[in-house]
């Protein structure tokens, strides 16, 4: 398994998904060598062997997490600092060199690589070990670029990986469609494997603490409805549209508050936007939250919004459902494919979003129905099911284009 990060040394959902997937595969009897591009202890992992490809610290600390797309970090800056990778390309190159050393001592049946980050290493491993390559797509460069063109180098690596892979796993129909439409990969080579949520990973002793977001609680006592987004504040997440929809909603229902928990390069723009719409007093920026603050952010919310322009899956929606919130999400979010009791809208359709916010705020019956019914849906997909699907794909025949004859 060629990964980029594992909790707690992760910057986001990729590490979480890899952790649960590997654990479930191990439960199904797979023995796994999981390669990460950094050296850090993973003492709580006993179900597989974690291998470090470099001596670097966890990579996200250098701003080279799983979601990197900007050119500087990819190309590198010509400054040599010992122990600090000059670019993500340097890390990837060292990662691939490490894979090359494994061929001396190890034997594997399958390579399972995640995203463009380890695609090159995966291709090299396929060549050296002469075994099938499965590429698991959690996000494409089209998603990360949030509607902009994205980084051409990353596109190129992603394309090579998809071409060379024997099987491709996509986390949603949305992602599969991107792979098929934008990279012209044959649809039959791609299987959709939705992500799941492992509810046992939540701390059972958790009790919501109303003091964490005291101000929001006081608003709620005053009849306010709290909408939240727990996300990186970045263009992919469509938060400017969320802000606009929220502002429109307040013109029809005054007692609304918006909690934005997370950080990112768009934060200042969003603060300005809130002021421009005249809703600054009801928009709360909580910054990056972890642990209790993170769970309390869900618990304080009546409505959880996922406003992404392009979201391959969107695990936070399942986390929010676990904390009893009503969900509104864009049709461009993959997680909407596994849930029924939700409101959906196109990311640009702020009128529709405003409508949905107001409807929930005005009706307890609607709010309760959405909250209660989605609770019965969010655990329908389990990691054990996903592991079984992966194992099936490991043994599926490689995709060979059918011979169509020669037309002279």
């Amino acid at each position, binding site marked *: 398994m060629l990964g980029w990060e594992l909790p707690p040394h992760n910057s986001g959902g990729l590490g979480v998904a890899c952790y649960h997937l590997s654990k479930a595969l191990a439960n199904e009897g797979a023995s796994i060598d999981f390669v990460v591009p950094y050296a850090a202890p993973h003492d709580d992992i006993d179900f597989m062997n974690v291998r470090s490809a470099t001596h670097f610290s966890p990579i996200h600390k250098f701003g080279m997490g799983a979601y990197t797309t900007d050119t500087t970090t990819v190309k590198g800056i010509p400054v040599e600092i010992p122990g600090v990778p000059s670019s993500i390309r340097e890390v990837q190159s060292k990662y691939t060199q490490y894979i090359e050393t494994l061929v001396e001592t190890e034997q594997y049946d399958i390579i399972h690589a995640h995203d463009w980050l380890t695609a090159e290493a995966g291709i090299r491993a396929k060549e050296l070990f002469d075994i099938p390559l499965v590429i698991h797509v959690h996000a494409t460069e089209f998603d990360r670029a949030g509607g902009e063109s994205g980084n051409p180098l990353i596109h190129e690596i992603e394309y090579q990986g998809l071409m060379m892979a024997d099987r491709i796993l996509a986390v949603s129909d949305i992602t599969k469609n991107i792979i098929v439409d934008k990279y012209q990969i044959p649809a039959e080579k791609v299987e959709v494997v939705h992500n799941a949520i492992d509810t046992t990973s939540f701390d059972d002793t958790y009790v919501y603490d109303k003091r964490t977001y005291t101000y929001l609680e006081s608003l709620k006592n005053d009849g306010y409805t709290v909408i939240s987004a727990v996300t990186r504040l970045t263009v992919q997440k469509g938060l400017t549209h969320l802000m606009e929809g929220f502002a429109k909603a307040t013109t*029809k229902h005054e007692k609304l508050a918006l909690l934005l928990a997370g950080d990112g390069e768009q934060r200042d723009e969003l603060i300005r936007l809130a002021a421009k719409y005249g809703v600054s007093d009801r928009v709360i920026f909580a910054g990056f939250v972890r642990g209790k603050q993170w769970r309390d952010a869900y618990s304080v919310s009546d409505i959880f919004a996922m406003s992404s322009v392009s979201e391959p899956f969107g695990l936070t929606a399942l986390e929010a459902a676990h904390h009893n919130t009503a969900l509104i999400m864009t049709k461009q979010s993959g997680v909407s494919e596994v849930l*029924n009791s939700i*409101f959906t809208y196109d990311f640009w359709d702020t*009128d529709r979003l405003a409508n949905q916010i107001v409807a929930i705020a005005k*009706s307890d019956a609607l709010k309760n*129905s959405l909250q209660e019914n989605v609770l019965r849906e969010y655990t329908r997909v389990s990691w054990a099911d996903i592991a079984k699907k992966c194992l099936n794909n490991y043994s599926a025949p490689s995709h060979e284009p059918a011979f169509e004859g020669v037309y002279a």
Partner: protein
Amino acid sequence: MSKQSINLYLHVHQPFRIREYSVFDTAINHNYFDEPDYFNRHNNERIFHKVADKSYRPMNALLKHLLNTHPEFKLSLSISGTFIEQARVWAPDVLEDFKELVSTGRVEILSETYYHSLSFFYSRDEFERQVEAHRQLIRDTFGVETKVFRNTELAYNDALAQWADEYGFSGILAEGWDPVLEWRSPNFVYQPEGTQNIKLLMKNYKLSDDLAFRFSNRGWPEWPLTADKYENWVADALKDQSVLNLFMDYETFGEHQWEDTGIFEFFGEFVQRWLSQPNRTFSTASESIQYNEAVGTISMPQTVTWADSERDLTAWLGNDMQQEAMRYLYEIEGDVLATNDIDLIADWRKLQQSDHTYYMCTKWFTDGDVHAYFSPYQSPYDAFLYFMNALRDLKWRISAHSAQQSEDIRG
């Protein structure tokens, strides 16, 4: 009457579906039902044309042919007021076809609420106004009197039967539901508990649903259902029994079961086969009551409907959203009527169509098994959202009215 008789009853209805009526329309644009985009899935006119082509026109032609060919062929129809309003505007030929059927004297029209509502369970006064409005509409349109009552969704209980008895109806329809019937057969005429004159006709749901729900289901062991096979089943069911009540949506023919399933050919052939023996016939609802004595009394204190495996009202009034919507809707009855604004009152009544709350049903939604085919909305939550926006607008209009009136008085 010693003949074996089939009492065929078809329900004809189209609702005014609410368009994507947004919170930004509320208090500004009071048009809840007319979707301007013809190709939108909420466009009532487009849906009406589609169903007219698939079902009303071909089925009416078939019924006309059968009535012309077989003097013994008869049936009963219930036609909602909202259907007639739509047909008048969008497909007058369809309405003419129905008039022609009725003019044969062998097609009976049943009584119901004009707006296909569940008002009986919320406001007896409003319910009676809608029954009267429907009777008048049927008089005006077809020149006939209604004598037998069927409530929306066949929602029935003893109180309804007692009301219909006092109101002067000679018969009433209900589901032939096993827990009520116990060992008894639905293929007889009964008397409802606590009534004097009225008789009860109960749907044989097995033979009805074989056509309405199972006809084209390839997973059904009996598929394909032939006229020959169905004739045998019907003959068996009527052995030593008096009348078979086949009740279903009219749109079964052509809309629920598409033409390519062979439903039209099947039906034509079945009627012909059934009438090929002299001891068999069809009867209208009134005739079924007239020619058969009640064999016993049936009591249904709890409301029974013809929907779903539960046969109760939960598809319409089962969840909190549905109950909240109905509570708000009927709460404003007095204020609505006091405005004397006929447009406003008509809009309020259109919001009473049971279809609206049906679209809000979440019973199977979380299992992914959606009532999708019958719902024009993406989800039950969307249906609730648009309904409540329309209802809020209605309330706004009421207050605008009273503000206007007090100004008039002062002026």
